[in-house]
């Protein structure tokens, strides 16, 4: 089974590059043929990526969450998959290039450095941990997509304010739609993160009896969760519109990134499995 895994590992960055190229070409030219075929290329890529992740799980007898580079591949998949679902639901096809770029980046790094791990710590074979990680990653994909739409919102907002009617004005959907896409992605991300946190809390005492709630990773995640929670509740029950909604999304995302960098480089946390 190693041969197909290695082949897919080689081809996935190429496929994501192809998807990215198709979406970018369509963004700049709006050719009808590309507009229809890019979604098909993305779909085929997602199928092959899912196949890759399944074959890895079977071959190495653990979910592909045991190294940073396995995680990167899952992030690439979940971002592309979330975008695909969003595109199917909304039929807004002009923003893919900005989101698929993330999948392409993560998959390139993953494919370059990923190794065949047959021997992994026992804790990483736990099913609850698998669920926890998958929910967390899908949640982070949601907030990443939310941030991308937030940035596109800001870009279009500034273009409109400055009377610039170029490519951004012509190709992006309306501000209201970008705001909605950003908000809905954040809501989905928040729900999945909440599930991941709940599973983590259930699983944590059994896996790490000496863990601390003051662990930097837990504190960081909690702050991210709080920021999104406040933002979503304010939007739902308060009077948050436009730029303010986007502000929450971007702040939450920035906090998530900072927290990730700090905890994985500086701080000591029980989350460091690799």
């Amino acid at each position, binding site marked *: 089974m190693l041969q197909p895994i290695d082949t897919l590992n080689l081809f996935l960055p190429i496929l994501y590059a192809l998807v990215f190229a198709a979406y970018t070409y369509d963004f700049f030219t709006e050719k009808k043929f590309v507009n229809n075929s890019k979604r098909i290329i993305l779909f085929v890529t997602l199928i092959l990526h899912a196949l890759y992740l399944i074959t890895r799980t079977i071959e190495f007898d653990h979910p592909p969450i045991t190294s940073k580079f396995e995680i990167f591949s899952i992030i690439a998949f979940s971002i592309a998959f979330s975008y695909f679902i969003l595109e199917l639901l909304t039929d807004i096809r002009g923003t893919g290039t900005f989101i698929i770029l993330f999948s392409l980046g993560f998959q390139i790094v993953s494919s370059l450095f990923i190794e065949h791990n047959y021997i992994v710590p026992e804790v990483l074979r736990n099913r609850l941990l698998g669920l926890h990680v998958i929910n967390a990653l899908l949640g982070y994909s949601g907030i990443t997509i939310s941030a991308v739409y937030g940035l596109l919102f800001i870009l279009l907002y500034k273009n409109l304010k400055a009377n610039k009617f170029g490519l951004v004005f012509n190709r992006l959907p*309306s501000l*209201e739609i970008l705001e909605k896409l950003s908000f809905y992605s954040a809501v989905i991300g928040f729900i999945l993160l909440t599930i991941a946190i709940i599973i983590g809390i259930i699983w944590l005492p059994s896996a790490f009896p000496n863990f601390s709630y003051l662990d930097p990773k837990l504190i960081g995640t909690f702050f991210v969760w709080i920021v999104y929670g406040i933002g979503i509740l304010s939007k739902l029950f308060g009077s948050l519109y436009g*730029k303010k909604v986007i502000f929450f999304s971007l702040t939450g995302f920035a906090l998530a990134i900072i927290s990730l960098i700090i905890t994985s480089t500086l701080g000591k946390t029980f989350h460091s499995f690799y």
Partner: protein
Amino acid sequence: MNLVGISINHKTSPLELREALHLNHDEIIELVPRLKSSIFSEGVVISTCNRTEIFGFPQNHVLDLAPIIDELILLKPVNGIQQEHFLKFFSCGAVKHLFSVASGIDSMIIGDSQILGQVKEAFEISEDLNFTDTTLRKIFDTAIKTGKRAIKETKIGEGAVTVSYAAVQVVEKIFSNLDKKSALVIGAGETGELAAVHLRDKGIGKIAITNRTIERAEKLAEKIHSEIVPFQFYKEHLHNFDIIISATSSDTIIVSYDDIKSAVKKRKNTPLVLMDIAVPRDIDPDVKNIDNVFYHDMDSLKIIVDQNLQKRKDQIPFVQKIIMEEMIGFFGWFNTLDVVPTIRTMRSFFEEIRNDELEKIKNKVSDEDFIKIEDMTRRMIGRILHNPTVKLREFAETGANIKEVAANTMILKDLFNLGSIPSNGKEINEDENKTDRVNEKE
């Protein structure tokens, strides 16, 4: 083909002349009988605010266009009009010009979609007045098809090319569902009306009009089924609207920074779109510095209009390609008009020979054998003529080489001496029969 056409349009004459020569429906109806009586056997008169065009087939096959212009000026006397103000077209050039007009690439605003309807309407008037026949009908059917293809297959009609429509295009980049939004149009003049109509066409949820003269506001409100806000109170209602379009003829600013600041505050910072399409401006331009306020004036909207016009210009080669395709198709059809009588004559010629020969043996064979011979000769003639008929039709339908079509037709006519006979071929058959009889005698 002897189709001729004259055109006076925005490229050849100033607005005053075009206006003066514009023909309304009744005037076209008055002009057609005049053209019919002495100039054209069939024809069409197209007249819009930017062009007046007359196409037709001359009765006497003389390609002199002066009488058409004279007839037009006789109906609509205009000072200062000269022959130079008219473009003149013949045959293929006339067809090409008509197709260009119908597809909108000859319009003042390139890609103008109204012209297609106007061409169609002009043709219908001629049809109603029995001023059209097969060829002209085919030309106009193809022109309308060309116009439709241009709209469908290219982007010639896409993008806003008027300031009021550009304003609506910007609004659509801010709000997704206009049916849940409300708009206030300040000023019930032509520009305001146009903007209001565009918004209504885009399905705006609620629209209100305010105007210094209440009668004008009422008139427009009735036309677009909108509400009226009294002019003296409209500032108190600004916060109730998501979109404000101002198009008054006021010399001073009528909506101040503070008016908008206060409206935005009351709206709890929800986005507010302001379109100032008045010259001089109606709204204080400093309002663009307020968060969630999108302010656009004539200058900024003109950028969109210019961009879209350029995009439409870039589409002209694609439309010209469609025009060329349709011209090839049309002339292919037209060329078959020459070929069809030749084919018919040729078949009649052979049929006559067959009938003549059958007649000769009718009394020499049994009825049963006669039926067999009759059947056999019919199939034989059919097989002999199948290939030349198909080839001749193919030559004509491809329309690629008219000379070749003519040469082949001539060879056929010469070989069977078809040229000297009427279409039914009776005379030649009689002559041939005579020769046969002479031979028999000998």
